[in-house]
C-alpha cells in the first residue's frame, strides 16, 4: 500500500498543473499551482525555470498555494527550500505550501529527500498551511509562527527530533496537526514520550484536529491518548493508517471520555470485527471510521504507508 494519487484539492483550492499551458485560469490566486518535473532526474535548472515561469504567470504576489511534485531526483537531492527563501518578496501571497506530492509510483515515500525546513517557516510569517511529504534528511528546530493553521508531516518514518521540535514550537494558531509517525525501519523512531508536550496540552493551544497516523507504535499512542489532557479540546482525533489492534482500542475505550469528538478516524486497523463494532457502539454521536480492516500477516502488522 502507499500513496497513489496526487492531491487534487489543496488549501481548499483546486490544483492546477503549472506545466499545462492549455489550462485556463481566470484568477491565478484562486487555484493551487502544482509544479512537477516529468523527468524523474530533471536537472535543477529545469525546476528553477518552471518556478520562474510560475512566478511570472501568477503576478507580483506569486501563487496563493503551491504544490511541488518531482523537483528532479527527489530520491537523492533535497528540495531547494533556499529557492523559496530567495524569492520571498515575489511570494508575498503564499499561504499554503506542499512539498513532496509524489506517489509511490514516483518515489518511495521514505526516500523523498527533504531538508531543514526551519528557514522556510521563518521566512514566510504569513504561511497558513504547510504539508511536507517524506522525511529523509528532514530537520526542524523549534519555531515561533503565528500564521500557521495547518501543519502536516506525511512520512514512512518521522524522526523523533522533528516530533520534539513540533512539540517545542510556539504555534498559537495551529488548529490542525498531522504527524505520520511511520515505522522505525524508515527512521520513525519517535515514541509516545516525544509526543508528551503535545498530548499534555502545554503547546498548541488552538489545536482541534490531531492526527497521529500511519503509526507502528499505534498501540502505544492509543494508550497515551487515552489519558491525554489535549483530547478534551479536540473535535477530531485521527489515529488512522496505523496498526491499531484490539489492545489499543480497549485502552482507548477504557480511558477518558471521547463522546465530545466530532470524528474519530481509526481506518486501516487490525481490530477484530467485534472490537470495531464496540468502538462504534460506545461512541454514539461520534462519527467513527473503522473502515479498511487489515489482516495480520506472517511478518506482523504493516502501517498503510511505509517504503
Amino acid at each position, binding site marked *: *500500500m*502507499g500513496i*497513489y*494519487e*496526487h492531491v487534487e484539492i489543496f488549501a481548499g483550492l483546486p490544483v492546477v*498543473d503549472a*506545466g*499545462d499551458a492549455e489550462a485556463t485560469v481566470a484568477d491565478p490566486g484562486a487555484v493551487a499551482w502544482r509544479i*512537477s518535473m*516529468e523527468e*524523474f*532526474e530533471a536537472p535543477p535548472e529545469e525546476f528553477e525555470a518552471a518556478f520562474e515561469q510560475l512566478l511570472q504567470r501568477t503576478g507580483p504576489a506569486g501563487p496563493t498555494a503551491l504544490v511541488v511534485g518531482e523537483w528532479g*531526483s527527489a*530520491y*537523492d537531492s533535497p528540495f531547494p527550500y533556499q529557492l523559496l527563501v530567495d524569492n520571498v518578496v515575489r511570494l508575498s501571497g503564499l499561504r499554503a505550501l506542499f512539498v513532496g506530492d509524489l*506517489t*509511490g*509510483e*514516483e*518515489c*518511495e515515500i521514505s*526516500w523523498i529527500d527533504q531538508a531543514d525546513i526551519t528557514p522556510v517557516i521563518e521566512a514566510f510569517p504569513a504561511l497558513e498551511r504547510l504539508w511536507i511529504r517524506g522525511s529523509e534528511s528532514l530537520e526542524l528546530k523549534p519555531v515561533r509562527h503565528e500564521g500557521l493553521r495547518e501543519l502536516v508531516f506525511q512520512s514512512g518514518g518521522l524522526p523523533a527530533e522533528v516530533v520534539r521540535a513540533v512539540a517545542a514550537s510556539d504555534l498559537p494558531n495551529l488548529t490542525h496537526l498531522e504527524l505520520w509517525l511511520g515505522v522505525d525501519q524508515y527512521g520513525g523512531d519517535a515514541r509516545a514520550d516525544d509526543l508528551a508536550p503535545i498530548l499534555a496540552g502545554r503547546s498548541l493551544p488552538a489545536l482541534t484536529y490531531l492526527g497521529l497516523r500511519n503509526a507502528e507504535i499505534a498501540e502505544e499512542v492509543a494508550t497515551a491518548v487515552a489519558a491525554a489532557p489535549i483530547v478534551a479540546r479536540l473535535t477530531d482525533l485521527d489515529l488512522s493508517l496505523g496498526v491499531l489492534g484490539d489492545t489499543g482500542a480497549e485502552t482507548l475505550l477504557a480511558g477518558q471520555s471521547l463522546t465530545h469528538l466530532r470524528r474519530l478516524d481509526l481506518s486501516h486497523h487490525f481490530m477484530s470485527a467485534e472490537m470495531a463494532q464496540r468502538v462504534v457502539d460506545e461512541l454514539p454521536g461520534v462519527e467513527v471510521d473503522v473502515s479498511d480492516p487489515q489482516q495480520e500477516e506472517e511478518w506482523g502488522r504493516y502501517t498503510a504507508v511505509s*517504503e
Partner: protein
Amino acid sequence: MRLAVVGNPDNRRVTMFTEAVLRAGLPAPAVHPWRAVLSSGLVPAVDPGTFVRIESPGEDAEVDRLLREIGGGRPAMPAEHGEIVGSAAAFAGLRWALDRIAAGGGLLLSRPADILTMSDKPRCHALLSAAGLPVPPALPPVHDYASLRAAMADAGWSRVFVKPAHGSSASGVLAFATAGRRVTAATSVEISGDKIFNNLRVRRYDDEASIRTVVDRLGPDGLHVERWFPKAALGDRVLDLRVVVIAGEPRHVVVRTSRSPMTNLHLGNARGDVPAVRAAAGERAWAAAMETCARVAACFPGTLHAGVDLMFRAGWRDHAVAEVNAFGDLLPRVLAGGLDTYDAQVAALARGWSPVREGVAVPCGG
C-alpha cells in the same frame, strides 16, 4: 465459413471461443490440441479456406514442458507449480510450432511472425518505438544484475521495470528503484533454493543480495528493461488498461488496478471501473489512448486481435504502451455492442476480415 483452433482443448479460452462460434450459427470449430501438434510435429491439414485461430499454449504443464524441450533441443523436466523456468527455450519452441502450424494450411487469424514479435518484448518495443508510438524508453540489452546497474547508471535512470524478454503477465517482473546505495524491488518472484517462483502476492525486497539473485536467475533467458512510467491511479490503486483491438477496433477494455506497481497479475487485483477512468482521464486523453491502441494493432495487420496494455501517466497528462499480447483477448463478460471478444472476432470474419498476406507492406503506427 469453417473455423479451426489450435489450443489446449479443456482451456476456457477454447471453450469460450467455441461457444461464440456456435452462437453465430456456425459449425463448431475443429480443435487441434497443442499437445498433439508438439508431440507429433504434425498439424492435420485443413482446407485452404478454413480460418485457423491460434490460442495460447499456456496453463498446461505438459505443453509448457514440450515447448521447452523442443526449443531447448534437450529433455526438459516438468516445471513445478509457479516455477519460472526456460522462457527462452519455450519461445524457441513456440517459433518451431508456429512454423508447423503455418505449414498445415488454412488462413491463420494470427500471423506467426506477429505472435513472435508480441512475445518478444525487446523486439516489440523496438517495433513500436520505430513506428513513433509512445513507449517508455528502454535500456540496451542487459543480462544480469551487474549489467543492469551499469546500464541504469549510463542512462542516468534510478527507476525501471525489469521484465523477462519472453514472460507473460507479471511473471518475473521487477519494479526496481535505486537511490544511492539503497535499492528496492517490488516483484512477484520468490526465491526458493535454486529455483525461482512466481507468487501471486507481490512482495518487496530491500536488500541488494536478493534482488541480485532474482535478476541473475532471470538474466539468461533474456531481459527487457524500461524506464518506470509512473502510472495514474484512482482511489487507492494504480491502474492500467487492457484494450483488445479486434479488426482495427479498440472496443473491449478492462481497467486493471493494484496496490502494488504490478497491475497485471492474474489474481489479487481488482477490475476497475472503466467509466470512472474515462472520466478521470477526460474525453480527449481517452480518445488519444484508444487511437494509440488502434495504431499499435495496425503494426500487426495480419492478425485479427491484439491485447494492448496501456498506461496513463500519473496526472493523466499522457500515456504509453506497456506491452502487446498475442493471446490477450481473454476478457470474460466484457461486452462491446453486446459482443464479447470472441463474438466480435467471429463477427469480423463474417464481415469479411481477412489477414493481410505475408510480405505486403503496411504502414504501421502513423
